[in-house]
């Protein structure tokens, strides 16, 4: 498959219209003389700001709606083809990038060890992993194309100065399948935005697209809310890269009912799905279950929005989880936590008041990734229950029953060990040790929404499919807004960034060709 390798080298691009002095070549060479004239980060910020404030939304070849990884990859790819490009990002600069700012890696096929990946990860194994998490809810042609194209992603990103962690660095266990961005997703975005602006891509922040002018599948213009005014921008082609509606509380409540009020949103408040909804109103074919979202169990004390990675809790499998009634409700030791945390989002969402409590004793300390919020601690279970405002007797009964049902075994939290309970409903099937060594610790859990599955249907050229069955002449899609084509349900670590990068590149290139034809 050569889909991804055809884009021309970024250096061969014609001079961009709006050159940002001083940043030329900054990241390519080591301490070039031009950096003497670069003053401050603040000035760069101000420049962005001025662009966003004063410049009108001029007609452009390719309009990119959404400034996450997929959008910026599309922008870079469209510039490689020589098109003029404008990116509209709904968030302010500090919160730009949608969910990409909380990501950390992308999943890459590779036949041999590279500087950023160990061993090998081949197409079939990758596809099987995808089949397993999606339960077959995937388009095999698009999925395999994405997998094959993923192999070229790290090198393409490196051309724009993106840095990765060395393959064996850090405390990572995903070094075989996933390439880690040095510093994570926000660092990646900083580098890609700088590259895009260096190449003349115009970026507007606080610019939320709320409507599209589409005639019979042909994109004409987008309506943008900016600086408190409504503006329109015309373009020859459009790439939708504005993600899902995970931060849209009203929409979540429509789908989930009042329970949604207790959900925590793991990303910024700007992932509202307004552009997606607006486009779906134009006879565009939808994919993905509109009622489904990816939810993980996170610390209930997390901020309502944008808590990101640090709010996750990794101690569930080391203890028991009880609900408001003080009852256990699911096998905490069913499988390794990374394979189960998404299920727990759903499980907690189904409990009264959408809350649950993970309870461990001091034997578990040091065996899980530290949490950002301190545990609620007590020297006895009833005292702990009282502190949590739970029914003391019920909690004590649950813990006593659990302790009695534990079958002796050899504890090993790095394997599916033989420590389990017998005779409970539900049983805990691994890592079951009695909760008997004080102090006891509790962490409250709530569902944390990461992303939604609803999106638009596309073909292999990232072309948006219309309900009529034919592709739109000039509308393309990349990232979370089309991920449902490949990821019908479940999640595979790092595949969101892979889909975003692969389809960002394709959508940008195809949109540019469509616009300059």
């Amino acid at each position, binding site marked *: 498959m050569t889909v991804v390798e055809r884009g021309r080298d970024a250096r061969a691009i014609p001079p961009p219209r709006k050159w940002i002095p001083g940043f030329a070549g900054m990241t390519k060479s*080591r301490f070039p003389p031009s950096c003497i004239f670069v003053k*401050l980060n603040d000035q760069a910020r101000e420049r962005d700001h001025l662009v966003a404030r004063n410049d009108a939304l001029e007609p452009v070849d390719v309009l990119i709606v959404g400034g996450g990884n997929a959008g910026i990859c599309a922008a870079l790819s469209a510039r490689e083809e020589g098109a003029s490009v404008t990116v509209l990002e709904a968030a302010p600069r500090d919160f730009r990038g949608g969910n990409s700012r909380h990501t950390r890696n992308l999943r890459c096929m590779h036949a041999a060890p590279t500087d950023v990946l160990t061993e090998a990860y081949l197409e079939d194994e990758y596809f099987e992993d995808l089949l397993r998490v999606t339960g077959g809810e995937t388009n095999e042609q698009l999925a395999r194309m994405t997998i094959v194209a993923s192999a070229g992603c790290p090198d393409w990103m490196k051309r724009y100065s993106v840095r990765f962690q060395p393959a064996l660095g*850090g405390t990572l266990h995903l070094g075989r399948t996933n390439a880690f961005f040095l510093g*994570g997703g926000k660092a990646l975005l900083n580098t890609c935005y700088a590259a895009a602006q260096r190449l003349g891509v115009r970026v507007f922040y606080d610019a939320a697209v709320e409507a599209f002018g589409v005639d019979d599948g042909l994109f004409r213009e987008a309506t943008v809310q900016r600086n408190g005014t409504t503006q329109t921008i015309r373009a020859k082609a459009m790439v939708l890269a504005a993600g899902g509606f995970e931060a849209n509380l009203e929409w979540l409540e429509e789908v989930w009912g009042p329970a949604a009020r207790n959900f925590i949103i793991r990303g910024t408040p700007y992932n509202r799905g307004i552009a997606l909804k607006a486009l779906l109103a134009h006879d565009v074919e939808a994919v993905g279950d509109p009622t489904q979202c990816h939810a993980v169990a996170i610390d209930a004390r997390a901020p309502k929005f944008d808590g990101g*990675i*640090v709010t996750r809790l990794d101690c569930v499998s080391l203890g028991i989880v009880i609900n408001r009634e003080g009852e256990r409700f699911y096998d905490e030791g069913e499988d390794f*936590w990374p394979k189960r945390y998404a299920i727990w989002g759903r499980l907690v969402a189904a409990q009264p008041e959408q809350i649950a409590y993970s309870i461990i004793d001091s034997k578990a300390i040091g*065996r899980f990734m530290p949490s950002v919020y301190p545990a609620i601690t007590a020297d006895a279970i009833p005292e702990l229950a009282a502190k949590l405002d739970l029914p003391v007797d019920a909690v004590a009964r649950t813990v006593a029953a659990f302790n009695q049902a534990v079958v002796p075994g050899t504890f090993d939290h790095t394997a599916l060990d033989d420590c389990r309970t017998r005779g409970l409903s539900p049983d805990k099937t691994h890592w079951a040790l009695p909760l008997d060594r004080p102090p006891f610790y509790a962490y409250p859990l709530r569902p944390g929404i990461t992303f939604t599955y609803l999106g638009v249907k596309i073909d292999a050229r990232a072309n948006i499919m219309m309900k009529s069955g034919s592709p739109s002449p000039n509308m393309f899609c990349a990232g979370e807004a089309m991920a449902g084509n490949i990821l019908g349900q479940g999640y595979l670590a790092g595949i969101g960034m892979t889909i975003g990068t692969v389809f960002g590149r394709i959508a940008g290139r195809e949109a540019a060709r469509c616009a300059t034809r």
Partner: protein
Amino acid sequence: MRLDELIAEGERVMTVCNACRYCEGYCAVFPAMERRLTFAPADLNYLANLCHGCGECYYACQYAPPHEFAINVPKVLTQIRGASYRQYAWPSGFARLFDRNGLISSLVLAVCLVLALLLASLVSRPTGVLDPPVKPGDFYAVVPHGVMAWAFGLVSLLVVMALVGGFLRFWRESGEGLKTFAQPFALRAALADITKLEYLDGRGAGCTYPDAQQSQARRWFHHLTFYGFLLCFAATCVGTLYHYGFGWQAPYEWLSVPVILGTLGGTGLLIGTAGLYWLKSISDKALADREQNGMDIAFIALLFLTSLTGLLLLGFRETAAMGLFLVVHLGVVMALFLTLPYGKFVHGIYRGAALVRYALERSRPGLTMGREQ
């Protein structure tokens, strides 16, 4: 910020970072952090002295202001680092000198020392420093060698004692024995990090200083300063060897080893310190601790003046002004020496020791916390 508030903030920030760990590829701070579950003041001091305050982790941080978590690792670690210098200072009573150590006080000290030397030379030679010596460039006709050697020898001894005292306090706080410090593999690893400035290199891209764009500027200017300083020190050592070992007295030829070393080193110091000052003046203020500006700039200024007056002395050593330049140079050098243990210079001691400790820690097994997602 009060010290307890500062420590509490450091603990809060490191707790968030330890739950995130996205920055673990940047520098030694984060792998060292990952070996810990809690952050006592001693841990924070150690992490703070591993930090260069370069800003990579700040710009990459999804929790940096205006996020409500308001995470700013370089700033809080810089503040804690500044406080740790006072804590380790030996003798303790002299810790207050860090507060007084600013540009003005350093310059006043230098001027006082110059004046004192002028007076002293007037006493020893009634004709004063402006009277050209019989032999051109004969420094010891202005300030006798014995006086110079005794004065600087004594001050050096005190300086070394204070620095060693500070180092011992740092090392004792680490809980490691002195024997473990002397492990060759750890010393080698630390030396490699120091001589290459590994953690300002950013795997070839440089670091985000003075602004959000990666640049090697700070590393290069620091190299010029560091190696310039070493070359000047080497020049002094060779001169001492010539004097005592071979009985060859200064002044030395233009192309002699001490003069070449000193000239190269002095030039490096001039460019390096000027560059560091320039970078500092345009650096992102969001990461800086303003209270340490005085200390930082005083050290940079004294290094700059030391090399400037040294090079001027070299240039004018065969003129009538030699005596004046010599006295000014000696005064500035003396001021630099006196402020070494209570100024920015100590960062080299504590960062070096922290890097040794980092190498030691890395040789031991860390925490295992099951599978990561």
